[in-house]
């Protein structure tokens, strides 16, 4: 164990905020101890496990139980989860962390049921993919109704899914719809999400707790994925490179202005990946690419250290 109370007592109460200092002293003395992070992990694992179990149940018992019974069961479970959140809202109580994840479970079960119903009954016919748009709209509505960042993340991912972009690692290089291009779709998503963030312009930029932050995080990531996807295609390589550069400057600048380290990291990380990728495509020679790549990474490291120092200065 280690205890930093000794150092905290040295701090002058004039220099440090009194409330923050006494809170820190209570934390160091183990007078108060939060297991929020552990509960978060447990809740996430529980929801993921449950939803995976439901998916396997559908697969294993489709013939035995039948689609109607399965759908009824999943919709009922989802409704129960929503009901918990609704009850808390009606009672005008703040939703707890646990209920946040119960609500997320409800949304995911609802998505499962709708997707299953679409596959089973072809409700939307040739326009089957619109069920994702409907789901996105539903999740967006419930996100605002319950004021849930997790549901907003689900809604934005469902919307991106409708546009044909999977929010998973590596998909920029393996688009679902290569003919239409993942790059423009990702960039369109980024634009829509950025516009969404404009509706929350009044929120504090450095809080990281509101809807604005969710929209902007998604916009930044989808924007960079789009630029990388454009760069991966030989016909749009240079458009991708320029887009990546512009995005890196814009997002990096926003990171400095709004004091958001994550934006700085996206700017440096994605642009390094893009630059190295471009170099390997253009240079061809393994040895030459390695040397140029090495210098690129060294440059990125130097830039990262410099940007961190500037961020620290601006937060000081």
């Amino acid at each position: 164990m280690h205890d930093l109370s000794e150092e905290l007592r040295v701090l002058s109460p004039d220099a440090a905020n009194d409330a923050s200092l006494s809170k820190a002293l209570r934390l160091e003395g183990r007078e108060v101890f939060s297991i929020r992070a552990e509960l978060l992990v447990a809740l996430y694992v529980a929801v993921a496990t449950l939803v995976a179990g439901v998916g396997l149940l559908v697969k294993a018992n489709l013939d035995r139980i039948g689609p109607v019974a399965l759908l009824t069961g999943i919709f009922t479970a989802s409704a129960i989860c929503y009901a918990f959140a609704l009850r808390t809202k009606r009672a005008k109580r703040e939703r707890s962390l646990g209920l946040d994840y119960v609500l997320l479970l409800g949304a995911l079960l609802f998505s499962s049921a709708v997707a299953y119903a679409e596959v089973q009954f072809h409700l939307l016919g040739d326009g089957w993919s619109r069920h994702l748009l409907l789901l996105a709209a539903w999740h967006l509505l419930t996100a605002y109704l319950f004021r849930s960042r997790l549901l907003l993340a689900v809604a934005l991912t469902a919307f991106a899914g409708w546009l044909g972009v999977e929010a998973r690692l590596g998909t920029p290089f393996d688009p679902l719809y290569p003919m239409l291009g993942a790059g423009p779709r990702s960039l369109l998503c980024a634009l829509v999400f950025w516009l969404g963030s404009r509706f929350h312009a009044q929120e504090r930029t450095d809080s990281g707790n509101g809807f604005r932050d969710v929209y902007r995080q998604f916009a930044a990531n989808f924007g960079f994925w789009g630029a990388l996807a454009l760069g991966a295609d030989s016909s749009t390589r240079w458009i991708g490179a320029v887009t990546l550069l512009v995005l890196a400057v814009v997002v990096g600048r926003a990171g400095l202005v709004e004091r958001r380290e994550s934006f700085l990291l996206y700017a440096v990380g994605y642009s390094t990946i893009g630059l190295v990728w471009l170099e390997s495509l253009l240079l061809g020679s393994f040895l030459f690419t390695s040397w140029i790549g090495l210098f690129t990474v060294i440059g990125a490291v130097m830039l990262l250290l410099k940007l961190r120092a500037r961020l620290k200065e601006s937060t000081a």
Partner: protein
Amino acid sequence: MNIARPTVTEERWLLLADRYRALRSAVEATGNGGAWKTTTPLGRGLGFLLGLFGTSFLAGALSLFPSPLLVGGLLLIIAAEWLVAKRRVVRSGIEEAVYLCGAIAVAVQLLLWSDGNNEALGVAFISTAVLLAGWRLMNLLFTTLAAAGYSLAIALAGGSLLGSRMNTLEAGIACAVLAIVALVAGGRQWRRPSHDQMLDGLVIVMPWLAYGWLVTYGWGRSASIWMALALALGFFTVNVVVGVKRRRHAPLISALGSLVCAGYALHELLRLPLHWMLIVDGALLLAVAVLLDRRLRNLQVGVTSRKLDESASLDLLQLAGAAHITPAPAATPASVQGQGGEFGGGGASGRF
């Protein structure tokens, strides 16, 4: 010879500034943290990634040199030492990745020269290199990785103390003993926080490894699975008690992993269909977590589930996690394929 690293006092002040953002300016104004530069977990992650990128490019650049692993490894170690000594970076991720790769490269080159065929010795040698890098940079990930490597070396060793083909059991026992020793040692006050964190790494991972080796030892035999279940439940109980009593995160994190191990062992023993196991386990875990949160969230003293600090990394992880388990779009909905959905997609992917 003086090794460039923060002194005990500097390390404590640096940790204080990192731990309490509201006090950072006041802490830094004291100047007790020296000229060292630290970063956030997100920044450290990107730094580590860039370090790995740089290392792989250096490997490519030196591929035509004689003894590229030794030359590259030494260059990497010198670069990492320069970063620490001159740029005064600590826990930035960059110097950690570079040092780790350098130490492993040198160890592998020496092993190649020795022309030995003893796998266990080779693994132990590489683990020692990782341990030295971990000790040098006071990195809990490396020291834990080294301990895991030593357990692998025991499992690969030709001879065995407990009889033939008992190596994996010995590896499991070694991990369990190490976990208990780390748990006991973690009870004393450590001046240098990084020493405490190194013990935390062992407290978290060693029980899981012990379970893993035990399952490997008696693959498919119910007696062995019962033993593994007892071990997982034993570590779960001990870690929960110790974690709550000492008010420490590491034993509680370890207990969460032990719970997953116990769930898997139960699945092996009961042979229930996987979907029912997942649904029952998930529902139970959700119910327990929700009830715990409900009971603890209003407590102002003692163990609570209230948010006590602002963690941007945790907020981002939650968003990424929610996005990850959101249904993925299907390419075509033409027919039912019986895939059951991806893990986390819960069959909502439309790929039934």
